[in-house]
């Protein structure tokens, strides 16, 4: 397992230390803290009925944000349903993330210049699509990659293998990230496969595979940066497995992790908290203070409050809106139904 920062916040692999300025290091910390607060607030808002579908992210900050931090603006993200934080840091406004959660089409409208698609619900579909985006970048000779995320359960899908294999055969500029948080809802990773690692599944596609400490933001960043470089240099795709953990339930739709996880297991992984170890590291370099952290927390809370208010003020969806988004030009059946609903909506 590739690791740079251990649980005590000590550098254990000096040679692999990525070239990050003090400002970069502080920015990474800021994003991790902000995202942890966003997760706490999202869970609370979901419980109040002010958000809909929500897949908790606490514990996965290093995995999600370390990899996103290694990207350029031109890079294209194909997220899974738990990967909203990467979209937010790639440029998706918070209000839209909340509208996605509630189920409003405006939440899925990527602003101009935000290279991404909305979170994929069909586990594995993003993998073959990412192979296609990476092939498209290669054909256009662009200095850009496609990056896609799935979980440990997702690595059992046919589309997971097909996506890796197509990307390998075509030399697509794609980076595949498997966030192995050890559970697919209630099913432990041992029941997904007899393979000792998920990273080794890269062998079946003939591509590079690396297993990374997914609670170590520096290791995740370094591995993604390297994979990105290899991809744009024409050296092919990479599979990155991040070993991580979700502290919360699978989703907020009634999953209860106490049915399948022990308290011991939870507390073992809490000791590995990516934010705790990175804070210790930054404090040892005099780059972080409690005051700075509190500022981030207050900022996050204020942003969430403003975004949820903006989401509340978004006009309700009409059936005619949904129809207008189906095709460039309405086909005859929809033309007829459009008139019917236009009439209904005018009453």
């Amino acid at each position, binding site marked *: 397992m590739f690791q740079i920062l251990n649980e005590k916040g000590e550098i254990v692999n000096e040679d692999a230390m990525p070239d990050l300025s003090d400002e970069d290091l502080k920015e990474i910390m800021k994003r991790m803290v902000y995202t942890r607060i966003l997760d706490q607030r999202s869970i609370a808002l979901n419980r109040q009925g002010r958000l809909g579908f929500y897949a908790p992210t606490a514990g996965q900050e290093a995995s999600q944000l370390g990899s996103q931090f290694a990207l350029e603006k031109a890079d*294209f993200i194909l997220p899974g349903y738990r990967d909203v934080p990467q979209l937010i840091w790639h440029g998706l406004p918070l209000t839209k993330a909340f509208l996605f959660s509630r189920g409003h*089409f*405006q939440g*899925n*409208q*990527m602003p101009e210049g935000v290279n991404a*698609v*909305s979170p994929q619900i*069909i586990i594995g*579909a993003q*993998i*073959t*699509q*990412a*192979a*296609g*985006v*990476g*092939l*498209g*970048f290669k*054909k*256009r000779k662009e200095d850009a990659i*496609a990056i896609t995320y799935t979980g440990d359960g997702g690595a059992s899908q*046919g*589309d997971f293998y*097909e*996506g890796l*294999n*197509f990307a390998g*055969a*075509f030399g697509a500029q794609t980076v595949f990230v498997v966030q192995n948080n050890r559970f697919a809802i209630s099913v432990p990773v041992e029941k997904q496969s007899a393979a000792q690692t998920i990273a080794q599944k890269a062998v079946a596609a003939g591509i590079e595979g690396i297993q990374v400490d997914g609670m170590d933001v520096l290791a995740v960043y370094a591995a993604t940066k390297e994979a990105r470089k290899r991809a744009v240099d024409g050296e092919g795709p990479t599979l990155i497995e991040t070993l991580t953990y979700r502290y919360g339930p699978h989703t907020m739709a009634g999953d209860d992790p106490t049915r399948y996880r022990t308290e011991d297991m939870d507390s073992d992984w809490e000791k590995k908290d990516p934010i705790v170890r990175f804070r210790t590291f930054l404090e040892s370099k005099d780059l972080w203070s409690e005051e700075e952290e509190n500022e981030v927390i207050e900022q996050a809370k204020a942003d969430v409050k403003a975004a949820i208010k903006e989401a509340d003020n978004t006009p309700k969806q009409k059936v005619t809106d*949904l129809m*207008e*988004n*189906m*095709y*460039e030009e309405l*086909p*005859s*059946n*929809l033309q007829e139904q459009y008139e019917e609903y236009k009439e209904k909506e005018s009453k």
Partner: protein
Amino acid sequence: MAQMTMIQAITDAMRTELKNDENVLVFGEDVGQNGGVFRATEGLQDEFGEERVFDTPLAESGIGGISIGLALTGFRPVPEIQFFGFVYETMDAISGQMARYRYRSGNTQSMPITVRSPFGGGVHTPELHADSLEGLMAQQPGLKVVIPSNPYDAKGLLIQSIRDNDPVIFLEHMKLYRSFREEVPEEEYTIELGKAEVKKEGTDVTLIAYGAMVHSCLKAAEELENDGVSAEVIDLRTVAPVDYETILKSVEKTNRAVVVQEAQKQAGIASNVVSEIQEKAILHLEAPVLRVSAPDTVYAFTQAEEVWLPNHNDIVEKVNKVMNF
């Protein structure tokens, strides 16, 4: 003008669009140097290079997925599924994904993809090659489904399908690939999607068909003519959306209709046509609208195709029922 088979007209359409638009990409299993298992892409890789016309690994879901990814980077993919019986492998990529992209992105991302695929019976193919699965596609909002019955339509409809900025499923009946030639203009032309064509005018009964069944209807109409029944034959050309305007106009004139498909009775799209006619023109009908279709079994074993597939005799029989109702 040139005499072309339907397969030549299809190749010609792809050549036209590869030339017209540098974003057009043609790919699939064996479509490159081999020129496709039916020669549909013959010569295209030599002419346009491997960057534009290329083979893929043998995995239909992957083909669907890369089509979507290529569309997200501004390309206009024309993937091929070797036989449409293999669509089950890529149902998610087609129905779960590309059909929904424009909608799910709130009209900010589109999928200008044309999935070409052969299907259809009467040529003794092995299992799951000939199945008529257009009904599955026609049920998916976000797709258009096109089925040409002749070389002229095939070229004009395929060019139009490739230019369409939403996903089109373009189904090519294997029996029609080389069964006859007709005059096809060498220059480019398009045929609007969603528009049917009256192949033969008539006054007593409307026959509505698509694919190979159009020819069976024309043959049946000839026989019926001898018996003094004048049948109007409509070729749907697009089965989703269906051109109900042309159908209703005809039914209001003839007051009788039979819908003809090669698919099983529980499949295909005939039931949609019957429903629409009864909703919109019941007061014009002298008899119920009947259907000609295959029996509700799995597609026939090769040697049973002849007794299983609907043919012109089945059509004549149903027309007589409608006439004598």
